[in-house]
C-alpha cells in the first residue's frame, strides 16, 4: 500500500517555516513514517521535474511557505496546485504576504536599486543586476523575474487551508498533519487555528482593563516592561486584540507584545484598520494636537499594523504604484 505523498516548498521566505517542520522533533518521525515526502528543497534532493511527472493530484498535501513575488514562485505555485489534493498556505507569508509583503510600499525599481546598488553592505561597482536572459558559452539561461507586487498564495492560486504564524507552531503543524492523515478536515478555506483573539489565551488577560486611556504610546525598547501586566495598560502597542490566537501567546509570555503574525480572525477583514480603530479610540486626549502628540510614538503605522498582512490587506499595496 502506498503512503500518502507530501511536499514542502518555499517561495519568498526566510526559512523559519522549514525550521518549524524540523521543530516537530520526535513527532516528525511519526509523520515521516506515515507519508512519502516527494519534494522538500531545504532538506532533500528532488528536482522540479520529479514533481512535474507526477499525475495530477498525486500529492495528498503540499505545505507551501513564503510569499509569491517572482515568476518562478508563481510557476511552482501553479504546478504544485495542480499536483496536490490539498494546498496549504503555511506561515504568515503564504497566508498574508508576511514580512516580504512590506515591499508593497515601494516600486520594484526601488527595491532592486537598494538591494543591488545603494544598500550599505553592497559592493557592486559596475551596478550589475541579474538579467532575465543572458548568453553564457553559447547557452541562454533564464532567471526568474521579480514581480512588481508581492502576493499571498491565495492571490495566485486556489488554497485549501491556511496555517498561520511566523512561523506556525509545531503543535498547530502536528494537528494539521493529524487532520490531513485522518481525513478529519474542516471546511475548505479554513485557517487551522482557533477563531478567537490572542487576548483569549494571553496570560496577561486578567490585567486587561475594561477601559484603557492611552496617555502615550511606548515602544518596547523605550522602557522596562512589566512582565505580567497587559501591554495595553502599559501603553505598548499590542496587536493581540486584532490577532488570531493559537500560538500559545509565546511573545507576550516572553515579555514582548504581539506583532500580529497569526493574522485576523474570520470576523475581521482588515487587520491593520481594525487594530488602528481599537487603539486610537482608547486614546485619552480629546483635542487634535494632544491626540497627535500621543500618536507620535507610532511613527510607522503601516509597518506596525500591517507587519505581516499588507499584501492581503484591503488596499494590498501603495495605491499610487503602477
Amino acid at each position, binding site marked *: 500500500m502506498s503512503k500518502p505523498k507530501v511536499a514542502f516548498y518555499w517561495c519568498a521566505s526566510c526559512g523559519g517555516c522549514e525550521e518549524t517542520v524540523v521543530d516537530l522533533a520526535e513527532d516528525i518521525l511519526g509523520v515521516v513514517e506515515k507519508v512519502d515526502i516527494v519534494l522538500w528543497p531545504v532538506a532533500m534532493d528532488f528536482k522540479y521535474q520529479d514533481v512535474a511527472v507526477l499525475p*495530477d*493530484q498525486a500529492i495528498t498535501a503540499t505545505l507551501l511557505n513564503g510569499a509569491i513575488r517572482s*515568476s518562478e514562485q*508563481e*510557476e511552482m*505555485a*501553479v504546478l504544485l*496546485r*495542480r499536483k496536490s489534493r490539498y494546498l496549504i498556505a503555511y506561515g504568515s507569508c503564504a497566508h498574508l504576504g508576511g514580512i516580504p509583503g512590506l515591499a508593497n*510600499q515601494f516600486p520594484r525599481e526601488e527595491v532592486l536599486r537598494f538591494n543591488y546598488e545603494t544598500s550599505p553592505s553592497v559592493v557592486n561597482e559596475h551596478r550589475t543586476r541579474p538579467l532575465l536572459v543572458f548568453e553564457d558559452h553559447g547557452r541562454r539561461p533564464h532567471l526568474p*523575474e521579480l*514581480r*512588481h*507586487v508581492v*502576493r499571498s498564495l*491565495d*492571490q*495566485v*492560486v*486556489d488554497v485549501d487551508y491556511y496555517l498561520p504564524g511566523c512561523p506556525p507552531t509545531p503543535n498547530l503543524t502536528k494537528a494539521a498533519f493529524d487532520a490531513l492523515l485522518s481525513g478529519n478536515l474542516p471546511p475548505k478555506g479554513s485557517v487551522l487555528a482557533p477563531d478567537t483573539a490572542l487576548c483569549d489565551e494571553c496570560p496577561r488577560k486578567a490585567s486587561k482593563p475594561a477601559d484603557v486611556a492611552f496617555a502615550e504610546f511606548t515602544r518596547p525598547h523605550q522602557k522596562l516592561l512589566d512582565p505580567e501586566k497587559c501591554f495595553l495598560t502599559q501603553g505598548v502597542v499590542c496587536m493581540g486584540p486584532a490577532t488570531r490566537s493559537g500560538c500559545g501567546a509565546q511573545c507576550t509570555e516572553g515579555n514582548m507584545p504581539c506583532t500580529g503574525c497569526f493574522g485576523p480572525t474570520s470576523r*475581521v*477583514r*482588515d487587520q*491593520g*484598520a*481594525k487594530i*488602528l*480603530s481599537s*487603539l*486610537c*479610540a482608547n*486614546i485619552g*486626549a*480629546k483635542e*487634535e494636537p494632544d*491626540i*497627535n502628540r500621543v*500618536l507620535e510614538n*507610532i511613527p*510607522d*503605522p*503601516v509597518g506596525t*499594523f500591517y507587519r505581516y498582512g499588507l499584501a492581503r*490587506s*484591503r*488596499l*494590498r*499595496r*501603495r*495605491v*499610487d*504604484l*503602477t
Partner: protein
Amino acid sequence: MSDSASPPASAAPPAPPPWSPRIVAFFCNWCTYTAADLAGVSRLKYAANVRVIRLMCSGRVDPQFVVEALARGADGVLIGGCHPGDCHYVEGNTKMLRRFQLLRRLLQDLGLAPERVRLEWISAAEGEKVKTVINEMTAQLRALGPLGLPEKFASWDQEVIALARQMHAAEAAEPAAPPSAATPAHPEILHV
C-alpha cells in the same frame, strides 16, 4: 514586463463616459444626516456625487469601512459627525477624531492624497455646510482624478494572468492537457 496582448486596464483617465467622483459619506444620525435632510428641505443644490450612509454615530465608523469603500471604487470618503461636545453618545465623535488622525496618516503612507478622506463636524442646523463641504470635496476629487482601485488591482494582477496564460498555452500545445490545468491563476477573483 511581459505585457503581450494585455493593454493596461486603467491608463487613460477621462474615458468616454465622463468620469465624475464617487464619494461615500458616513453621516451620523443626530447631526450631519439631519443637516443633509435640512439641506434637502431647504432646496439647497449640491453635487450629486455623494452616496450617504446613515450611521447612529460617527463613532460607529470603523476604519475598515473607509478602506473597504476605497477598495470597492470610491474616489473619496467623507465622514460627518456632531461638533465636539455635542455627541449624542457623549464622545463617539471624539473616538472618530482620534481614529481619523492616524487613519489619514496611514492612508497617506499608502499613497492616497489627503483630500480623499475627510472628517467634518456638521450640526443638524448646518444644511448650508453640507452643501459647501460636498461641493468642495467633489471639486477637489475632480481635480485629483479617479482613484479607481478595482481597476488598479486588476492591472496589478495582469503580471500573474500573463504567466498563467503562457503556461496554459504551453500545456495546450502538448497532447491531451489534463482538464484541471484549466484552473489557472485567478487572483482576487477568489475574494469577490
